[in-house]
């Protein structure tokens, strides 16, 4: 395991990008930082600017217009940056699949490292996703 991967996995700054979500996933994301789950124990903190981000959390569906913005926000992030699609909408399009302005899923625009289905996923599931992502980066089984 290299020094860079070690440092990155010990201090993940999370940036939350909501694309017309119903707000349930967003609330559950905030839950993981509350005293009950306290992700700061593992060095995970929420940041306000995409330039400071190591992980992008994508929630909601991205339609023809907001997908362009999604791509731009991804390009603005300082690399290396990881992407987690949170919730059924970001993973599959959910019930908006047949909608007139939804065309393709998020991973057609930007590379996605982890998918986390659920409507909304529980905070425990989000912590599980982070753990799996960190394990994958560190090359552990």
């Amino acid at each position, binding site marked *: 395991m290299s*020094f*860079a991967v070690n*440092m*990155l996995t*010990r*201090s993940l700054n999370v940036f939350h990008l909501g694309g017309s979500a119903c707000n349930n996933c967003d609330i559950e994301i905030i839950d993981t930082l509350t*005293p009950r789950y*306290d992700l*700061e*124990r593992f*060095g995970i903190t929420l*940041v*306000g*600017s995409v*330039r*400071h981000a*190591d992980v992008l959390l994508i929630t909601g569906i991205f339609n023809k217009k907001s997908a362009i913005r999604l791509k731009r926000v991804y390009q*603005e992030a*300082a*690399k*290396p940056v990881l992407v987690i699609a949170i919730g059924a909408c970001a993973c599959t399009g959910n019930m908006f699949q047949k909608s007139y302005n939804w065309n393709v899923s998020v991973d057609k625009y930007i590379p996605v490292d982890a998918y986390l289905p659920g409507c909304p996923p529980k905070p425990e599931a989000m912590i599980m996703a982070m753990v799996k992502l960190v394990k994958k980066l560190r090359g552990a089984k």
Partner: protein
Amino acid sequence: MEFGSLILQMLVFPGLLFTAVVGLVTSWVDRKVTARVQMRVGPPFLQPFYDVLKLMIKETCIPAGTSRWLFLSAPLFGIAAVALASLLIWRAFIPLGQTFSGDIIVILYLLTIPAMAVILGSFASQNPLASLGGSREMKLMLAYELPFVLAILVPVIHTHSIRLFDMLAAAPAVAKPSGVIALVVAMVCMQAKLTLVPFDAPEAETELTGGAYVEYSGPLLGVFKLTRAMMLFTMPIFLVAVFCGGIAFGQGWLPILLGVLKYLGLVVAVVLIRNTAPRVRIDQAVKFFWGPMTLAAFAAIIAAFLGW
């Protein structure tokens, strides 16, 4: 030889490296106490070190249309100034070399440079949120510098000296009522100098999304974070030196322990204020510093002249 030891002092012992390490430990104290106040567990001891080292491996984004030279050099001004200020303060504690008359004025000037570096960097980045943050930082700086300098004048009047070493040798300023008022004023100004809640309008995570630092990424953001951590160490130690008699070395371990406790007390006071107060608007902050705080500092100066 003399020159070599000076470089060593600047870069290693009381200067850059020492201040950075102790500053990061202090920022861990800040985060841990914050977590305990919020009934959380809080980050591990090495977390601030991981945060800064992680930023060193990240990419540096330079936004289009910036003034590149200013954008890249602004963080370095800040870190150099705070390292130099820390060096001057510690030279008064430990007789490494001669301190000079007027060093307290040099320290006061050096401690304003990190805020100016933030202002320059934010304006250079051409981001509207960053320039709002920068302009708020500038207003805040105009507001707190007046009462801060007035408060520092009180121990100067007590000791009739502008040399930090004489203030350490004399009776601590807080032994007199005027010193206590001045210490309280200086502590409130320290809160604003560190841009912590309630005076964090320049950063304002919720509406300016990081304010002045919006466009900074990678090693440059790391340098800014390090500067903030070093300020969190240097500012309380400066107040301990000026008002509370400093940390006395060379008289056994008990005075050293007492000095460290004084320092930690000031740090914890800063952290508790930041966790229990809501943010004030920038106009409220300016009114507060130019009104009650300046009047209190003037009262302390008059009391100091009367010998109280």
